[in-house]
């Protein structure tokens, strides 16, 4: 027991002496919280629209100004020729072309029907869909305005109407940053933990001090604990720092029990760091460790549901996710922070993380040899 205490003391002293590492521990949460959360957004800010107005009537001009007035669209250029519009898209200057054909106003007045054409750059399919739906609703609103103006009738009231009332729980403003912040926190904790732990182990190997440790009576588990515990503590410190930043910068509500967050954090980190240690026992060089870890973490992180929902993945991928510790921890973080879930709601994640943690740790323990 005393040995463990001394080992931990040594590890903490080494971290304190490493100025670069200290700076990283403070800077990385800040950068991630500020950059990642703000960058990872699907909120549509602005779409550049090219207007092809072949009608040049007062109605078409009204429609154009309604679109331009919308906070989502900006009409930068207009022309008479639709090909100019396609050219603009090819030139990466605009992402949407609205074509108002000739006789638009006349058709609308005489036959109660008119056509519009919308060309959308669909390379980014999601943005294209969102942009199109906003455009459609602006045009729909314009449609209603015309009916009110011309026919002088109040809004057409159909005999049957089913109103759908939407209530958004836990995030009524639909603030995407609240969804991203716990995700980024999970990522942060993972990266810091893995990075610090593997760096420390590799440094010992290079300095030769690992040989010195190996000839002492230190037990394998004490040595590995020394490589895990300090970095779990530091990672959790970063987690709280990150949470604090999120609260300050975007008012992230913290609904659930923070004790649960930290408890699961420990369980999760034991698993991830155990995996990292296991990888460093099977690799020969630093480069290999880094690459193999990067490889696995990339897969785990992408599949964890941080950027895209797990429910959208094919069934086989969702099954694989059961052995992805990042996925489970991500769920825990989001559910506890945003919805205030209790431990009873998280039994599945607890069991999964426990099994994974135990497995990885045992693998690392078994593989590690005190002889070089």
């Amino acid at each position, binding site marked *: 027991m005393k040995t463990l205490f001394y080992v931990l003391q040594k590890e903490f002293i080494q971290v304190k002496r490493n100025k670069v590492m200290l700076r990283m521990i403070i800077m990385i949460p800040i950068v991630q919280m500020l*950059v990642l959360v703000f*960058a*990872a*957004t*699907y909120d549509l*800010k602005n779409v550049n629209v090219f207007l092809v107005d072949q009608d040049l009537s007062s109605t078409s001009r009204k429609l154009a100004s309604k679109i331009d007035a919308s906070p989502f669209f900006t009409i930068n250029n207009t022309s008479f020729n639709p090909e100019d519009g396609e050219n603009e898209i*090819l030139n*990466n200057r605009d992402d949407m072309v609205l074509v108002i054909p000739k006789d638009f106003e006349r058709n*609308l007045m005489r036959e*109660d*029907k*008119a*056509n*519009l*054409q*919308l060309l959308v*750059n*669909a*390379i*980014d*399919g999601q*943005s294209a869909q969102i942009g*199109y739906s906003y455009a459609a609703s602006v*045009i729909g609103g314009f*449609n209603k305005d015309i009916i009110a103006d*011309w026919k002088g009738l109040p809004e*057409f009231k*159909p005999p*049957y*109407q*089913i*109103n*759908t*009332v*939407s*209530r*958004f729980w*836990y*995030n*009524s403003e639909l603030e995407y940053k609240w*969804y991203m912040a716990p995700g980024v926190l999970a990522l942060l904790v993972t990266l810091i933990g893995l990075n610090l732990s593997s760096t420390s182990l590799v440094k010992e190997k290079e300095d030769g001090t690992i040989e010195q440790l190996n000839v002492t009576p230190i037990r394998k588990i004490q040595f590995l604990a020394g490589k895990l515990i300090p970095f779990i503590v530091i990672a959790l410190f970063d987690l709280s720092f990150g949470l604090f930043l999120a609260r300050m910068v975007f008012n992230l509500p913290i609904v659930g029990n923070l004790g649960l967050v930290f408890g699961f954090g420990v369980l999760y980190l034991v698993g991830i760091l155990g995996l990292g240690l296991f990888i460093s026992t099977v690799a020969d*060089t*630093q*480069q*290999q460790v880094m*690459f*193999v870890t990067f*490889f696995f973490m*990339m*897969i785990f992180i992408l*599949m964890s549901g941080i950027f*895209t*929902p797990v429910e959208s993945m*094919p069934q086989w991928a969702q099954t694989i996710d059961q052995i992805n510790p990042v996925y489970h921890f991500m*769920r825990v973080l989001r*559910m506890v922070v945003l*919805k*205030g*879930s209790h431990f009873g*709601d998280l039994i599945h994640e607890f069991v999964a993380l426990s099994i994974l943690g135990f497995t990885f740790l045992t693998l690392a323990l078994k593989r590690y040899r005190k002889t070089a």
Partner: protein
Amino acid sequence: MKQFLGFLRKEFLHIFRDPRTMIIIFGIPVVQLMLFGKVISTDIQNAKIAILDQSHDNTTREISSKLLSSGYFVLGQELLPGDNVEDVFRQGKVKMIVTFGPEFEHNLERDGKADVQLLADASDPNTARILTNYASGIINDYVKKEKLQNIQLPDQINVEVRMLYNEGLKSVYMFVPGIMAMILMLISAMMTSISISKEKEMGTMEVLLASPLKPIQIVLGKVTPYLLLSFINALTIILLGVFVFGVPIKGSFLLLMGEAFLFILMALSLGILISTVAPNQMVAMFISLLGLMLPTILLSGFIFPIQNMPLPLRIVSNILPPRWFIVIIRNIMLKGTGIQYIWKETMVLIFMAFTFIALSIKNFKIRLE
């Protein structure tokens, strides 16, 4: 010349003797493509919902079955009036709850209107918004078809929309250029910088400099294997994208490879530059990962569209080489443009490559003193 070739051979051997790293180098692009092509998706389907039906009449049953047969929704739980809504959300079992009040059909017939409540778990606001939109759409559709029998509403503006370059709205079209940028950065910039730093750290760089090899030959020798590996990887990604995921190459294949070559050169020079400032491998790795990979993934337009980012991030994005490369590749592959549309972006890459090379030469000379 013979000296150079001998040196080159040594470099190649170094790389090929490390099978684990080789597997990873060739495995990463394949795995990434698979992930982004088949796994990562923003399409919402089979979302688990719960229905709280306090009426149990024909209309509510018809609407419920329309919702559940749409492919978007799956019944996660049948709710009873006494059940606590909070519990269901907190357990993460369903994403949305559809509520019909009592006497739904009766109200509809008598007053001409009735309400349906959609309670959405907005901890994931994007999904919540999409699900409520889908549900409203389906319900409105139901009203139009069943109750109104498609009465023609007056003054319809009909919008015909054409989705250009990607009618199927397949997200993999957007990702393939980004994956290429990322992999090329990884191999060309990061691995080059690590390789040169390693020699410096091991002390073998001094030995090399003491040999008859000129510094320029040393650098070229270090860089050439990674040039080759990157090129092979770029080709692999493009071929996989085309043949497995059906991503088109509408423009010139030659131009595509030419631009890829330019980007590789730029990334290699960046790798050399990093190695001149990094005293050892670890630092080189750090700089590459945090300073290159992370920004490449987040800010280059790879996954998240740049226009949606706040202004300071958009500015930062402009100094990232992958951002320009992605535009070029998307233009060539998906829009089918020739050089006349992308000459600006190409010039930016050329300029960056020259800058990095110039800086490296300056640094290198000083270091070797």
